[in-house]
């Protein structure tokens, strides 16, 4: 009894973060070679060890091939046509916020991330990254009182070189994959977090990434270390202006959790996703991995992925320490011509390690949304357990959802459970809600948010309702 045409006219609402900040930018020439890397390193005043790290990564990258196994399909990327470093001018050394260009402060304010002293978010410390550089980090002093280090990775390289040397590239090696190698060679900025032994980080930490230049790639690098018995919750947000060209974003995130520590890493990704015809948008190729090195340590990834033309992202956990815990909670929404291939890897090495995967994929328009996940039980993983739940929701009848669960077990005494479901928002469900006075878009958003509830419950309080709104916004006008 349902008429497909009514559930299907796909029109996208304008992207609210699509403005460009008019600011003088210092850019290096397009293209990548050894000199580019030396130039980036010199601009950032880096120690010798990091330049070497970059050059080794570059050499590895040259030997590697771009992966094509994901269900994405995009025109070839010309890596010589990308600018690898762009920074707003007058960015000498921002000792205080007064020295930050007011235009930048205004930009972040417009994005809902006020960083000036008076307007800061309470109880959330923010590191704001604009194109290739971090422009400000709030509440640094307050965090320092607890021994917590929260700064840009460039700053950390110079101020805490020993920690960087010890951990950088140890979870995601420079030759891990094509995009990770590229990132290791050219990464420009990102956040660094260090939580000392026994410290529960007193506030939510957050990085906000903003791409402003159209022809510049963004390659940020994040490193978070939680020492024994410490804990931290970290959130990243991302937006970019609307350009009709595709912009490359290839980030690497490494998390290290030592004995009895816990790291919660949440992402709200809302890069520009292209227009309703599929023109433009960010290519988002990200390597995120956490290592539970210590006993009873815990790493939890939550992500709400709504943006980007292409998303290629598998936040993973290496569960090395005995009884360590890995979690992955994901909502991925695609609309129009967006394509997402996302999921996780849970690598169980230690005994009695546990992991939970909850993935919710929503596909609307002509988009394609794939869950791809690996659960690996190594020979030592006695008594390890995994529970996976992958649900897909289709809106309209031209969207696609796929699930690719890979399960490897070398340990007979490990327990793996996988559940999957697919549902479609039916015209009759919509009509039911409408016939009770609830308008069409609110009806869709109620159903989507109900579908995602398990994941939203995992997000930090301050952001759960934001995520809900974001989904509603992305779907506004998507059906009808």
């Amino acid at each position: 009894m349902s008429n497909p045409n009514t559930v299907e006219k796909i029109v996208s609402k304008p992207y609210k973060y699509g403005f460009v900040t008019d600011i003088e930018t210092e850019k290096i020439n397009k293209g990548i070679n050894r000199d580019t890397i030396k130039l980036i390193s010199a601009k950032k005043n880096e120690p010798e060890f990091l330049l070497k790290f970059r050059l080794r990564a570059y050499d590895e990258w040259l030997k590697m091939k771009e992966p094509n196994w994901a269900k994405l399909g995009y025109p070839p990327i010309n890596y010589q046509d990308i600018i690898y470093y762009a920074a707003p001018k007058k960015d000498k050394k921002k000792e205080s916020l007064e020295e930050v260009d007011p235009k930048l402060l205004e930009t972040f304010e417009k994005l809902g991330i006020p960083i000036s002293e008076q307007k800061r978010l309470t109880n959330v410390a923010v590191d704001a990254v604009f194109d290739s550089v971090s422009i400000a980090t709030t509440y640094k002093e307050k965090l320092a009182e607890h021994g917590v280090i929260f700064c840009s990775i460039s700053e950390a390289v110079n101020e805490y070189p020993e920690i960087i040397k010890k951990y950088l590239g140890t979870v995601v090696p420079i030759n891990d994959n094509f995009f990770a190698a590229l990132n290791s060679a050219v990464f420009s900025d990102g956040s660094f977090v260090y939580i000392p032994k026994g410290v529960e980080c007193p506030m939510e930490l957050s990085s906000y990434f903003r791409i402003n230049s159209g022809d510049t790639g963004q390659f940020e690098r994040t490193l978070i270390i939680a020492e024994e018995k410490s804990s931290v919750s970290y959130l990243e947000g991302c937006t970019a202006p609307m350009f009709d060209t595709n912009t490359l974003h290839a980030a690497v995130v490494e998390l290290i959790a030592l004995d009895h520590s816990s790291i919660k890493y949440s992402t709200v990704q809302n890069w520009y996703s292209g227009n309703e015809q599929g023109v433009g948008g960010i290519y988002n190729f990200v390597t995120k991995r956490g290592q539970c090195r210590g006993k009873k340590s815990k790493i939890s990834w939550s992500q709400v992925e709504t943006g980007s033309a292409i998303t290629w992202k598998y936040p993973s956990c290496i569960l090395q320490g005995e009884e360590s815990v890995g979690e992955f909670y994901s909502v991925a929404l695609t609309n129009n011509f967006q394509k997402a291939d996302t999921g996780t890897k849970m690598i169980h090495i230690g005994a009695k390690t546990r992991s939970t995967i909850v993935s919710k994929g929503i596909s609307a328009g002509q988009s394609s949304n794939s869950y791809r996940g690996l659960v690996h039980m190594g020979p030592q993983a006695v008594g390890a357990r995994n529970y996976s739940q992958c649900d897909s929701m289709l809106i309209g009848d031209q969207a696609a959802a796929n699930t690719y669960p890979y399960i490897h077990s070398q340990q007979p005494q490990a327990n793996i459970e996988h559940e999957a479901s697919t549902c479609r928002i039916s015209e009759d469900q919509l009509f039911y809600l409408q016939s009770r006075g609830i308008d069409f878009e609110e009806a869709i958003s109620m159903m989507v948010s109900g579908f995602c509830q398990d994941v939203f419950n995992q997000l930090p309080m301050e952001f759960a309702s934001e995520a809900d709104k974001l989904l509603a916004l992305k779907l506004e006008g998507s059906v009808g």
Partner: protein
Amino acid sequence: MLSQDSNLMLEINDLHASIEDKEILTGVNLEVRSGEIHAVMGRNGSGKSTLSKVIAGHPAYVVTSGTVKFNGENLLEMEPEERARIGIFLGFQYPVEIPGVSNLEFLRVATNSRRKELGKEELDTFEFEELVKERLSVVQMNPAFLDRSVNEGFSGGEKKRNEILQMALLEPSISILDETDSGLDIDALRIVASGVNQLSTRTTATILITHYQRLLNEITPDFVHVMAEGAIVKTGGQELAIELENRGYEWIEENIKKINL
């Protein structure tokens, strides 16, 4: 029951509607005034359910000609949600399940959309819980159903009670109950019927769509209409329902044929 000053609420004039190019309604005429209870009877496929869905604005049906007015306003130009807000309520024959959407929250959002239209204050979660607990008694529903997803895993009878609960919360001007009696045992039927009776007032109207006389033993209609082949072919009082029960629909259809000859 029928007072002089009752208002014409619903006015359906020569209504034709089709689904996927197949004509289902072939010229329905009906007038409903405030304070009235109408029963619409007829065989399966006679167009009873279609009539209710067209009034509520189901997008799958296309109105090809005719008019439907509610308090003088053209209903056919309104979205389903607008019709609901101005006081049209459709109690579904098969209420759909909506997994993940909390029944309580759904009821609250729906109630507030109607209250807003009526110029009443919208209710927050706590205020609404008070209201809903009070209204639960109308259908003797277990409050545990509020915490579940909308209709998910409800039995047939529970779904119907949930429909009447919605009616109790939305306080519609006109309620169209599509085979509310189907799938109910006699106890559940009495509870649901008593709910409908409690909610009927001088200012509201009800259209009961049913196959059987048994619901009409519980709710007394002022008018009984018989539908066949997409139109109302006979109208009478309650005695018509009893006659139908005794003589079957064929009797009516025979009569129509005679008239047409």
